[in-house]
């Protein structure tokens, strides 16, 4: 038997310094995916090159590969503890993970090492606690099939962070459906804690036609495992036609990179006639950039309105656009399919922190 020796792999001699310069140019030009393999090649030859490692960490950060980015930058701090860009990168990683206390710690280290640095000062400013007040205003208009009149909805809510994880809020919703107007008022308390949160809401529509006369909701979420939360929402609502009770357990997962969140709920309702109905809803949210988040969802579940619980299939698409650090614009499209009619809704909203 003739054994053909394998051909030797082509060995390309690349000057690590040229490769490094090319990688930095890629990263600064917004091509982090091209920079990463080049920097890894440089580090294979020069593992002590902290400049290459910092650039690798920052390129991985730009790609949303946060765990790898953090490992690279932590290694830089071990080899070169006073490397300011490493601490800045670590702060930005924690900022992306919404771990602001740790982000502030890393940023304060950068500020200590580089007092007066403009980038570090801007970073620290962006990590300041968000203002305690939040105002949300929104409006929606729905077109119904079969020549039925449009629905309109307007909502205003105001909430305030009270400290120690507590926040309180109130909302007013004015809806017009089939020429009847309901005004629904709601008060809500939230309590956030490490790895979870709880909420309690009480609302009602005086002289209700189709909204609940009185409604009570309680729920929360708790961390089951890294990146996985369990959710539970329970509610009881008294309508002019009877009381509807809901219990909706669910799961929420955040994918590595922290940009994509998936959630699903099992919808269980005991309707106004005492009949158990069930369904599900699923939602995906993608933080496309620091300022733009996109969401898409689908539900096939019972819904109570106009005094009756009916099965509804609904798909929705939406976007949250950060106009400034404190102002967010929300756009949503909803398409519902129910036995009596179909509904298409366009919603617009603004959220303002102050």
């Amino acid at each position, binding site marked *: 038997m003739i054994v053909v020796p394998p051909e030797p792999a082509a060995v390309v001699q690349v000057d690590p310094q040229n490769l490094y310069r090319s990688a930095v140019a890629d990263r600064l030009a917004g091509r982090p995916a091209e920079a990463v393999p080049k920097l890894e090649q440089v580090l294979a030859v020069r593992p002590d090159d902290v400049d290459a490692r910092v650039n690798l960490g920052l390129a991985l950060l730009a790609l949303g590969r946060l765990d790898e980015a953090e*490992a690279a930058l*932590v290694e830089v701090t071990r080899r070169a503890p006073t490397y300011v860009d490493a601490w800045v990168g670590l702060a930005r990683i924690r900022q992306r993970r919404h771990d602001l*206390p*740790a982000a502030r*710690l890393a940023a*304060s*280290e950068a500020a200590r090492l580089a007092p007066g640095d403009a980038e570090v000062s801007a970073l620290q400013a962006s990590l300041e606690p968000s203002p305690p007040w939040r105002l949300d205003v929104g409006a929606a208009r729905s077109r119904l099939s079969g020549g039925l009149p449009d629905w309109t909805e307007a909502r205003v809510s105001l909430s305030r962070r009270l400290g120690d994880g507590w926040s309180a809020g109130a909302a007013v919703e004015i809806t017009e459906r089939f020429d009847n107007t309901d005004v629904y008022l709601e008060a809500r308390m939230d309590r956030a804690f490490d790895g979870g949160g709880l909420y309690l809401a009480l609302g009602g529509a005086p002289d209700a036609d189709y909204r609940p006369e009185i409604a009570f909701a309680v729920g929360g979420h708790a961390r089951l495992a890294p990146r996985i939360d369990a959710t539970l929402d329970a509610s009881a609502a008294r309508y002019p036609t009877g009381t509807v009770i809901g219990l909706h357990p669910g799961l929420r997962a955040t994918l590595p990179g922290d940009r994509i969140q998936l959630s699903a709920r099992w919808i269980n309702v005991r309707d106004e006639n005492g009949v158990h109905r069930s369904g599900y809803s699923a939602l995906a949210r993608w933080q496309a950039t620091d300022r733009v988040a996109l969401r898409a969802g689908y539900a096939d579940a019972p819904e109570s309105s106009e005094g009756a619980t009916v099965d509804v299939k609904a798909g929705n698409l939406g976007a949250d656009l950060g106009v400034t650090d404190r102002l967010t614009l929300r756009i949503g499209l909803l398409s519902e399919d129910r036995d009596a009619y179909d509904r298409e809704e366009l919603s617009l909203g603004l959220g303002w922190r102050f």
Partner: protein
Amino acid sequence: MSASRILIADDDPLLRALLVHRLTADGYEVATAENGSQALEAVAQQQPDLIVLDALMPVMDGFEVLRRLKGGGLSDAPVIMLTALKREQDIVGALQLGAADYLVKPFIPDELGHRVRRLLQMGKPAEEGSRDRRPA
């Protein structure tokens, strides 16, 4: 005089990096552990002079580490609990288990540095006397 040895046990790589940086700059010899089990091994091998211990860690939490360290007589080194838990029962529980101090995250690195210095100064005579002691 040799530098005091400090063990940092925390599962957060950023906090480990920050504390290593700060305490090394202050002249200490610093070792790290990523979980409670590693922390116990490091204590047995390195006999640190002070331990900074996170309460919530994988494999074995900080309270269990503290219980074994102090209950089992594994180390006389003062322990600073460094944790996000700020309920009174957590703080009192840690102190009852033998923690010398308790810092709630987010902490101020300079404050930790001061507490480390104070505890090491306070513990010096006792530590020197107990250095050769071994668990029964």
